[in-house]
């Protein structure tokens, strides 16, 4: 394996990690506030479809992005309504959203475009184009650092940079601001927030909305940057891998990034090498695909430290004396 191959695999790692990272941070905001969200997958899928559809119809990827965020926000609102206002079961609501998105996207796609549940291929301004970082071309010739900068770091779409910038931002919001303190508190003990005179419902809706926006960007990235258009079930379990990464990271932003990079790397390797031959033992590609989930089970089983979810997670808040 030469240096350029490594760079290419890592480059693909970054691109494949991006939707995971955005969805993972989305889940982080929601779950830190005590609202479990297994509907990340559905929100991403809806965002992927609506961003691709609107981008295809208007020719503007930015309008597509907005449409994707709006669609994801609408589903997040639904989740909020079910689990915060009506105090329903958060898991059931999430499952329902996943099914809703899976069915609805294909149905509308067929109705609008009549291409077997896909959108037309996106071209030109309807897609996010790679951005070339300054001096990328000039530095390309420098040994080692040149390819790292010009191939690995440069040449991604703007959403990739947004995703990675969101990591320190999330950390800062959670641990350095009033909003973050309250958000974390409401996921641990909503009664403490309530008796302190702060609205539990308001905080949780805010968290769910942030989750919706981030899932929207993740979905739009899938359909308008990573690929050129929407196809049926294109999220392919990324929402669940993001959840796995969230548990793996124990609900911490920086660790979420590491986990997503790891899982993205596994996907990149699986994509490039169908079957890996290690000294005569062939590892099938399915094993690579399953690895994120296996790692999560290992984490949950307590082999690598203990993953303690936010204490009030999954429970609707009912005021008690």
């Amino acid at each position, binding site marked *: 394996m030469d240096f350029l191959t490594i760079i290419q695999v890592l480059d693909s790692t970054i691109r494949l990690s991006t939707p995971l990272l955005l969805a993972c941070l989305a889940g982080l905001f929601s779950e830190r506030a005590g609202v479990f969200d297994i509907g990340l997958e559905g929100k991403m899928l809806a965002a992927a479809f609506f961003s691709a559809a609107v981008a295809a119809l208007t020719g503007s990827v930015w309008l597509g992005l907005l449409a994707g965020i709006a669609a994801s926000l609408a589903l997040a609102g639904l989740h909020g309504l079910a689990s915060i206002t009506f105090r329903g079961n958060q898991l059931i609501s999430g499952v329902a959203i996943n099914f809703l998105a899976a069915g609805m996207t294909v149905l509308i796609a067929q109705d609008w475009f009549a291409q077997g549940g896909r959108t037309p291929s996106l071209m030109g301004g309807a897609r996010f184009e790679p951005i070339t970082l300054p001096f990328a071309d000039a530095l390309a010739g420098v040994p080692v650092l040149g390819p790292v900068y010009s191939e690995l770091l440069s040449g991604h779409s703007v959403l990739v940079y947004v995703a990675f910038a969101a990591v320190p931002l999330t950390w800062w919001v959670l641990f350095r601001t009033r909003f973050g303190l309250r958000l974390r508190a409401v996921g641990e003990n909503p009664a403490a927030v309530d008796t302190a*005179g*702060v609205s539990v419902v308001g905080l949780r809706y805010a968290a769910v909305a942030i989750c919706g926006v981030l899932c929207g960007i993740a979905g739009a990235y899938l359909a308008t940057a990573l690929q050129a258009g929407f196809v049926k079930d294109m999220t392919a379990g990324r929402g669940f891998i993001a959840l796995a990464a969230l548990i793996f990271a124990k609900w911490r932003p920086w660790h979420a990034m590491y986990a997503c990079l790891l899982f993205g790397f596994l996907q990149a390797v699986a994509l490039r090498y169908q079957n890996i031959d290690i000294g005569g033992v062939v590892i099938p590609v399915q094993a690579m695909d399953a690895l994120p989930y296996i790692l999560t089970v290992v984490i949950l089983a307590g082999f690598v430290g203990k993953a303690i979810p936010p204490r009030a997670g999954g429970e609707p808040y009912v005021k008690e004396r």
Partner: protein
Amino acid sequence: MTAGGDTGRRDGAVPAIELRGISKAFGPVQANRDISIRVMPGTIHGIIGENGAGKSTLMSILYGFYRADKGEIFISGRKTDIPDSQAAIAAGIGMVFQHFKLVENFTVLENIVLGAEDGRLLKPSLAKARATLLDLAAEYGLNVDPDALIQDIGVGKQQRVEILKALYRQADILILDEPTGVLTPAEADQLFRILHRLREEGKTIILITHKLREIMDTTDTVSVMRRGEMTATVRTSETSPEQLAELMVGRKVLLRVEKAPAAPGKPVLEIENLRVIDEKGVERVKGIDLTVRAGEILGIAGVAGNGQSELLEVLGGMRAGTGTVRLNGAPLALSGAGSDGQARRARHIAHVPEDRQREGLIMEFHAWENVAFGYHRDPAYRRGLLMDNHALRRDTEAKIAKFDVRPADCWLSAKNFSGGNQQKIVVAREIERNPDLLLVGQPTRGVDIGAIEFIHKQIVALRDQGKAILLVSVELEEIFSLADRIAVMFDGHVMGERLPGETDETELGLLMAGVSGEAA
């Protein structure tokens, strides 16, 4: 005795809090009916009443959790509307709940600042809070480490954090709901010293409790509630525990159980060199020897966490131990097969566990389902391969009637009964089995006076039938009123045994603190 009368110190002519005609109903239940009180500034006012008398509802109205259906609230003479907790805080009301409202994995400082931050960024808020905290700590003797995590400090300290939270929000009126329920006697004493200090500084304190001694020791005035109504407001110095108890319950109550001297028979439970190591590898019971005879109550006194719980759990089959334990002369398995709760019941050991909500009941289940626990294999509850739920419900109804569980509804979930009635269900389930040995832990924790009297009577009645009873309680009063013999545990050891007539609280207190007497 004037209901809603002008009591307390008269130098501050305007009451700090005045309630006029507060009423609140939940469906058909009238939780508060036309309640009026006046609390003068700089006093400690007690509100006493049984569980379900409406004390907590009243305070929740004051703190903006519920809105009263009728009535007015005046704070320092000004009519005040309290729609939510924020309004209560703004009106200078601070509340220390029975179950603390703290974020466990936050620091003390973060908990204090939460909801009362000064700006969008945390750093300046935390810095300011740190300074204020030091001032408050010095002023009122409320020392806590601002950087400690809540989960790492004891309940006494956690309660201080709650008080500090209120003071940080500049509360002038402090409401404490059952503040000593989770505290050791020493911690409770400390709390009352702090409350007196707060009173001296001009704060007004409302103390909600069902413990008569606390009312008598600390308050200036006291209001008694019964079934949603304020039955009396009196000066503490002009009343007596007996009078208050009668006002609370509506009839004369025995504060001490009347019991004949014990007539101990042959040994039922013999414990030799019992050791228990917990899941963290810490030795909690360090080789103890005890004997409980037929027809006697052995009371185990001690501050919580000195091995009593583990002792009960091993005997009840919830935990493994080593050593020799004999029941009626035959050995009892302490680990492995035959050491579970089912095996214990087969040997006629009944167990009223310390924490009824976690170990005694399933809160979401109906009363009749709870009555089956541990005895679900009873042939009387069986019909072929299935359970005979009708028989079980008939049995539950009989137990409910005998133990005066209220409401007498076997279809009600355990969580919908008051603490006292929950405990009655557990005690009924265990005592009605007529066991040879009854293990009972904290039988009256969080239970109101009427129910305490009833439960104590049942325990004594079982003893009088010649059964052996092992009682663990952190309430010395309870130990003194029930036990025929008292063993004190400290740090996993039995520090000594005493007869109730030949010892006093001071001596037991010393033993509980690990100071052994002459030849303990």
